[in-house]
């Protein structure tokens, strides 16, 4: 893809579209990418990130991460920090799947103990963690109880025995966004989400049993501090707020389209519909968004509980004795109010991160004592064939409002992937390579083939070189469940 005219090189891995690139841009747009990744970036990214730079109240510059590709309103990988007093909040800058995120769980098991049982484990996980369309969670909730989840997040699960207190310590914001108000959430959103707690979803959502290969440790000291070692078995999963979050996003997108003329706001793309942060509409969206954040944290907590149950069943030992403990849980679709020092001045900003992961360095206040010296864990998932990474945030990520990449990003459309890959054949090939996968859909599996995604190794290397996050460990898949 040709690089837009006028794009300047800041460093080998940072490029900038100036304000003159498009009428209405209030700030420049920075793309974090190697020359190779930049060449693979679709034109939609440049168009969308420069649209984001037009939003009222945007601060300094907007960013796109190394795995960026076009999305709705914001590109995937898009980051924008807004001043609270005159800035806007845009649901397109968080994404439909509010608090889509990743959770990484370590065990004390070694790959040679797990491989003989991988098929049984994956088959049982496929039964116990509902996936795909029409799937219902395993706990029955009335609306009152669901509203409690929207306020409490993962803590609701811990209170009822679906997890350990330490799981909250190892979750962003302790698994709960404060100031969530279920009263501003529509009945339709509740209808869609009430029976989805503990479900994985479909598409690019997955639960994967992985191992650290012999050469998979990049930072021995950090790995030791987190009790990670080559040959270890871990579990990583990717999911979010399901239909609930989607409905919240859609409801407020529609509401903002109606409200924008009253606030004198025009946007170049309807999916960038927004409202002033301080307006009643903006505040209502933030409260509803936090409900969805909490629903997703509870969702992932429930899934962790099921994982522990499956390991107990398969190995006949308690999860405690198997050391099934959470490394961390991150969100890659949120907006958070954060204090960030820019050009020597401390500013309180609403940071939109869409398909982008928060990435703070050592001493970050939100971290538990054990992680403070290291920095905030970052979990970046690759494709089901290529593997994933654990990284740590860097102080130098301040240049991107303490943000880094979130995944590999797609290279080809679902339709193109289905033409090239056959689901059943892919299943057999992966099995012959030691990766056992279960999915409800052969076409869905084909669409998620490794070749349909960018090279995650290139993405994380770029993020490290740009100073956004640094690699700690790499994981390769053993087994996977998908919707």
């Amino acid at each position, binding site marked *: 893809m040709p690089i837009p005219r006028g794009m300047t090189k800041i460093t080998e891995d940072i490029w900038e579209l100036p304000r003159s690139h498009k009428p209405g841009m209030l700030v420049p747009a920075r793309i974090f990418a190697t020359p190779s990744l930049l060449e693979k970036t*679709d034109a939609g990214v440049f168009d969308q990130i420069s649209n984001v730079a037009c939003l009222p109240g945007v601060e300094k510059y907007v960013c796109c991460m190394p795995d960026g*590709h*076009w*999305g*709705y*309103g914001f590109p*995937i990988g898009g980051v924008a920090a807004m001043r609270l007093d005159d800035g806007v909040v845009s649901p397109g800058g968080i994404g*439909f*799947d509010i608090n889509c995120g990743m959770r990484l769980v370590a065990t004390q098991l070694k790959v040679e103990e797990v491989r003989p049982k991988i098929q049984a484990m994956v088959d049982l996980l496929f039964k116990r963690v509902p996936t*795909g*369309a*029409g799937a219902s969670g395993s706990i029955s909730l009335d609306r009152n109880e669901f509203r409690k989840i929207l306020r409490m997040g993962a803590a609701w699960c811990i209170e009822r025995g679906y997890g350990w207190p330490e799981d909250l310590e190892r979750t962003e914001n302790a698994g709960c966004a404060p100031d969530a108000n279920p009263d501003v959430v529509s009945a*339709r959103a509740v*209808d*869609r989400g009430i029976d*989805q707690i503990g479900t994985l*979803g*479909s*598409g*690019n959502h997955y639960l994967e049993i992985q191992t650290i290969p012999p050469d998979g440790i990049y930072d021995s000291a950090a790995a030791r501090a987190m009790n990670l070692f080559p040959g270890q078995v871990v579990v990583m999963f990717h999911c979010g707020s399901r*239909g609930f979050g*989607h*409905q919240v*996003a*859609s409801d407020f*997108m529609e509401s903002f389209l109606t409200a924008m003329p009253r606030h004198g706001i025009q946007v170049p*793309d*309807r*999916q960038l*519909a927004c409202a002033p942060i301080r307006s009643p509409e903006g505040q209502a969206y933030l409260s509803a968004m936090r409900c969805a954040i909490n629903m997703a944290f509870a969702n992932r907590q429930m899934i962790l509980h099921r994982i522990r149950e499956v390991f107990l069943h398969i190995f006949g030992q308690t999860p405690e004795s198997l050391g099934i403990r959470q490394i961390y849980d991150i969100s890659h679709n949120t907006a958070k109010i954060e204090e960030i020092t820019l050009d020597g001045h401390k500013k309180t900003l609403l940071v939109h991160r869409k398909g982008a992961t928060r990435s703070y360095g050592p001493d970050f206040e939100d971290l538990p004592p054990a992680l403070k010296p290291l920095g905030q864990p970052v979990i970046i998932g690759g494709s089901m064939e290529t593997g994933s990474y654990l990284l740590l945030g860097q102080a130098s990520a301040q240049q991107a409002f303490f943000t880094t990449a979130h995944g590999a990003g*797609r*290279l*080809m*459309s*679902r*339709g*193109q992937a289905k033409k090239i890959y056959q689901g059943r054949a892919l299943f057999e090939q992966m099995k012959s390579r030691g990766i056992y996968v279960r999915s*409800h*859909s*052969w*076409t*869905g599996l084909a*669409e998620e083939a490794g070749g349909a995604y960018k090279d995650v190794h290139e993405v994380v290397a770029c993020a490290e070189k740009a100073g956004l996050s640094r690699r700690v460990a790499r994981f390769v898949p053993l087994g996977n469940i998908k*919707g």
Partner: protein
Amino acid sequence: MSFRIEEDVALADVAIQIQADTLEAVLRESTEALLSVQLENPNAVGSEVVRKVELTAAAPDLLLYKFLQELIYLKDAHKLLLRIKKLTLAERNDGFSVSATLMGETFDLQRHHQSVDVKAATFHGLQVKESHLGWQATFILDI
């Protein structure tokens, strides 16, 4: 079938293009497109369940958006897979209204072979236009 999946438009999601004689036909084809995206065997959807839907919107594209969103809501909240049995569309001073009788059945994992789960209709590239060729609609479904 007058809908087409546009291959190179949406990487992570599904883009649909429809050519139809009437706006009512656009809604019918959109419903079929939604089922075809979600299921490998859309013809396996029976007709035991009936649902009535009434919507209004200021413009044809918003009408299509709201209609698709309603179908997605019914799929998630009530596990229903539906197609249009009867549709009445009226143009008013302030836009359009539609009254539809939908029929289908509850999602059954054993009989309905899912392809992907559609999570939302989007405004991205959403267009519904009338020309001398009839009506053309394009929309993208979030997967």
